[in-house]
């Protein structure tokens, strides 16, 4: 049974590798001889903005330029490395703002590297309501998938062991960091780096269960004690990451500032499109594993009733270990997918931990499919809520929804009704 699980993982990773390889060869064609960063600044009406100052600083290098009549800017660099690209907000025409931050840290190695600054108007929303809703829906689904990848694992672990794992966010961060180390540090191809990260993190998840949680279960540590232990572990790991990698947000060397492809009125980057497809495949594979394979069925049996499952010949500890490996591997890919859009950061997993919990709680603690539904709901809600409330408060809206749902349906959307409290 163990070989079968490994084989399944290998198939998944293989599929992932193939889909992403296809895109590597396509984007390699744009390689230039000199190293540079460039971009186009346009306002929300898609008209170029002229005369915006862009400053680029790096080790032993400072350069600046202004956008030309077509809104384009380009700064040639002496060599690859890490650079900071800053847009001088004071040079923007009145009423135009940068909506995604005026500072970018980019790692460049070869060729021209696009840096995307999106603009927004300070007063009126120029995008039509319909296309705005469509774009937010797509962004919401993307975020929902990231949350789902982490939430399914969290939910499976909760279901089989009863542990409310507050250090699950660190599994997400670890996935992103290992992929960063393999891609930028060791120069691996991005697809291999992601595959490597999934395998390493899955293995580490299994090790974490063996070394920490299994001994605790054996000595009968209570669930509240384990919850507090997971908080301690989370803090420890988070600051260990900070200690090792530092506080900067870094980006993967490959596909750093990919331009979006526009379909109708919405835009999505190719990397996000491919990452999303892989995420959907992985989630379907997990669903198949849960519903159709012997081990998956066993894990659901353990969730239902560990004692009964054990009595009917299921090796409960082994099922739990496999669930940990699966949960950690899924969370690792979630971390990579999330980092492709927001960058790699020592506390990125912790930043979305509450959203993951909101998703799991909404769906019903311990139900894998509930977690999936809850994640999509949370992802959509957090983005679509910006239509009505300020963007900075979008997290508040989702957490408030979670609390309200608990009021009327404590067992969550797909949870089983049971007497609680």
């Amino acid at each position, binding site marked *: 049974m163990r070989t079968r699980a490994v084989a399944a993982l290998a198939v998944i990773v293989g599929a992932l590798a193939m889909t992403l390889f296809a895109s590597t060869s396509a984007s390699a064609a744009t390689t230039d001889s000199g190293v540079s960063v460039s971009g186009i600044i346009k306002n929300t009406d898609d008209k170029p903005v002229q005369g915006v100052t862009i400053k680029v600083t790096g080790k032993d290098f400072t350069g600046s330029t202004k956008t030309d009549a077509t809104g384009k800017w380009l700064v040639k660099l002496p060599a690859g490395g890490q650079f900071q690209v800053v847009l001088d907000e004071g040079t923007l025409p009145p009423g135009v703002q940068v909506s995604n931050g005026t500072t970018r840290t980019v790692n460049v190695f070869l060729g021209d590297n696009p840096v995307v600054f999106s603009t927004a108007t300070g007063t009126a929303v120029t995008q039509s309501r319909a296309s705005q809703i469509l774009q937010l829906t797509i962004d919401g689904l993307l975020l929902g998938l990231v949350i789902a990848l982490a939430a399914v694992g969290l939910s499976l672990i909760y279901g089989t062991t009863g542990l409310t794992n507050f250090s699950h966010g660190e599994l997400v961060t670890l996935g992103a960091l290992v992929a960063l180390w393999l891609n930028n540090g060791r120069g691996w191809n991005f697809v291999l780096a992601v595959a490597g990260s999934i395998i390493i993190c899955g293995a580490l998840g299994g090790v974490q269960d063996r070394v920490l949680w299994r001994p605790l279960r054996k000595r009968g540590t209570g669930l509240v004690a384990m919850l507090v232990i997971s908080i301690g572990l989370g803090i420890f790991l988070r600051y260990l990451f900070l200690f090792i990698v530092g506080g900067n947000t870094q980006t993967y060397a490959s596909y750093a500032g990919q331009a979006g492809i526009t379909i109708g009125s919405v835009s999505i980057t190719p990397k996000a499109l491919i990452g999303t497809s892989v995420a959907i495949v992985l989630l379907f594979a997990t669903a198949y594993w849960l519903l159709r394979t012997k081990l998956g069925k066993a894990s659901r049996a353990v969730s239902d009733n560990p004692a009964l499952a054990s009595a009917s010949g299921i090796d409960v500890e082994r099922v739990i270990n496999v669930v940990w490996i699966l949960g950690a591997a899924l969370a690792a890919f979630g971390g990579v997918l999330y980092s492709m859009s927001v960058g790699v950061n020592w506390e990125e997993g912790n930043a979305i931990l*509450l959203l993951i919990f909101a998703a799991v*709680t909404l769906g019903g603690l311990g139900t894998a499919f509930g977690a999936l539904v809850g994640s999509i709901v949370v992802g959509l809600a957090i983005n679509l809520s910006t239509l009505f409330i300020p963007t900075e408060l979008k997290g508040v809206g989702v957490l408030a929804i*979670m609390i309200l749902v608990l009021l009327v349906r404590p067992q969550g959307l797909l949870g089983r009704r049971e007497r609680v409290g």
Partner: protein
Amino acid sequence: MDWGGVFSQAVTQGIGVQAVIFALAAIGLNVHFGYTGLLNFGQAGFLAVAAYALAVGVTYFGFSFWVSILLGLAGAVLLALLLGIPTLRLRADYLAIVTIAAAEIIRLVLRSVYFKKYFGGSDGLSDFSDTFYSVNPFKNALKWGPFNFSAGDLWVVTIGWALVAFSCLIVWLAMRSPWGRVIKGIREDEDAVRALGKNVVSYKMQSLILGGVLGCLGGFILALANQSVQPDKYATDLTFFAYAVLILGGAARVFGPVLGSVIFWFVLVFINRGLEESIRTGSITFLRAEQAGQVGYLVLGMSLMLLMIFRPQGLIGDRKEIALDAR
């Protein structure tokens, strides 16, 4: 190496402002977690509500200092009601998730640009503590042995320890009363208490209010000691530090949180300052200066884990009295 200076700072913080704030926060948590078995992970929210009610009351509404203090206490009661109504009927882990989320909601609202007019955004508010310092009887700084307090700090610390003593007295009286026995009964076996005809949810709510109000006193002290409030001072980390303090000292003991807070802050400040000093003088070269502060969090995480695994009753607690299992 100036080990005397490091020791002096550690002693000063170990009985100083930090220890007072976290002793108060942990005394509140002790009522929740230690005596009632409620997993409140939103204690930072109670401190934030009290501190901001004080600041907003004085700066925005122009209330007097004492009216604003009352406003803060009322705010803590209100927050307890808001948190308790949806969660007290649910399992322990639901309460943990909801309270942590509620504290985060409060922090996000406080730091938002949208409400900057009232709460001052991420910079927070200041200029509300004049009344408090104007009645300061201490005119000179205290420099005696390792103890080193400014006149202002001395006043804050004196009031702070008076509040700690008062809170301990309240907890001691409450827990030896019939009410306290019901509360401890709920921790041990909720169903049994319900079978005796007690309204368990109502008792839990009263416990949540009492612990919240005691904890929020720490929020006042934090605001007054800094003479300002900033939203990010009331992040979830504050709650985790309070838990570490409570578990170290011993939950379900009146003096557990106080002992825990003094020892925890002495050790943490000693390690942090010692490392900073060693890095500065070049005795430690494998660490960068900013990494010294991160070591404190590594210690926090490790101590939470190790205490909960090997000694959940802390220094003076009784293992049988700690609510370690979810119901």
